[in-house]
């Protein structure tokens, strides 16, 4: 039995930050929305630039481009509204992206110990190798350590 036979195709949303593409598991994405007004107020969490109003909810905006490509986005095409888990609770976070997003089905390769905490896996798509993002390691949350790179079940299933 080959490794490929043991794995399943999963859905991912590909997003663009500057010149690079990243992926997030489609199950973690709520919607893709046009940029709207960001409301700012004093706070001390540098990773959060403000909040947007979406469907009656107040959603924090986290520009993760600084961490991933080294500089914040100059232009924003969309906000990807993603679900961020905080223990048993899930909240929305808005991730600004600079280009179109794409839904794909692909096999994910699990990360290695040497991968950064924000990498929850790797995809091969269109000739590129693309990082699958671990939102818990990229977006801030109160009183928690960096989330594990991959869920324990996946680690155990690793060949």
């Amino acid at each position, binding site marked *: 039995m080959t490794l490929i036979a043991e794995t399943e195709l999963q859905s991912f949303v590909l997003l663009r930050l500057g010149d690079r593409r990243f992926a997030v598991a489609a199950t973690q994405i709520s919607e893709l929305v046009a940029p709207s007004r960001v409301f700012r107020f004093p706070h*001390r*969490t540098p990773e959060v630039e403000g909040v947007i109003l979406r469907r009656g909810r*107040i959603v924090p905006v986290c520009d993760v481009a600084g961490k991933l490509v080294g500089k914040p986005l100059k232009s924003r095409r969309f906000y990807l509204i993603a679900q961020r888990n905080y223990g048993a609770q899930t909240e929305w976070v808005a991730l600004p992206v600079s280009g179109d997003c794409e839904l794909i089905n692909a096999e994910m390769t699990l990360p290695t110990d040497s991968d950064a905490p924000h990498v929850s896996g790797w995809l091969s798509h269109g000739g590129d190798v693309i990082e699958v993002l671990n939102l818990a390691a990229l977006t*801030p949350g109160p009183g928690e350590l960096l989330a594990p790179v991959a869920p324990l079940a996946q680690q155990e299933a690793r060949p």
Partner: protein
Amino acid sequence: MRPLSPSKAPAPRAEQIILFRVSGQIFAVSSASVQEVRGVDSLSGAAKKISQPGLGKVQYFAQRGDNSFYVISAAMHFGLSPSPPALVFMLRRTRTALLVDGIEKMTSMTRLQALPRAFCHEERGWYRGLTALDQSVVPVVKPEGFLTPDEMFLLDAAMSPALADTGSDPEAGDSLADAGVAQ
């Protein structure tokens, strides 16, 4: 036989709030948390200008009846650029008063959303949550969040000689003017 009256959805409970301005930023505070609003001109008399290292936001110390309280610059507390305050909010059930630039309006909110967990630093102690008003988002301040118990302890320790000097005055009036905060 009378027909059953259609059941009505309960009206959302509204909370009266004061929208106030500090260095161009709008905040909200529950009206029930504000005991009194005074002009800064009334800050004259016996209160003391203080300068506690590391607590520059605490501008004055005053006594009001049996209680002492601290007057805090909202601009400095929130890390905003300083602006001349025009009003003082005496905050109920706290030992703090707040210097603000002005009142925007009084209104009501029907929904207070908890501060998103992505906000994970000091601001969690500053705000009760956020509310959406007129297609805008306003942070609702936590009256007890302007001084932590540790900060209050430090201030009380620093001010204890002043407290001993002045003593409490049970006959003192109940207004800020009576408290006599000096500029």
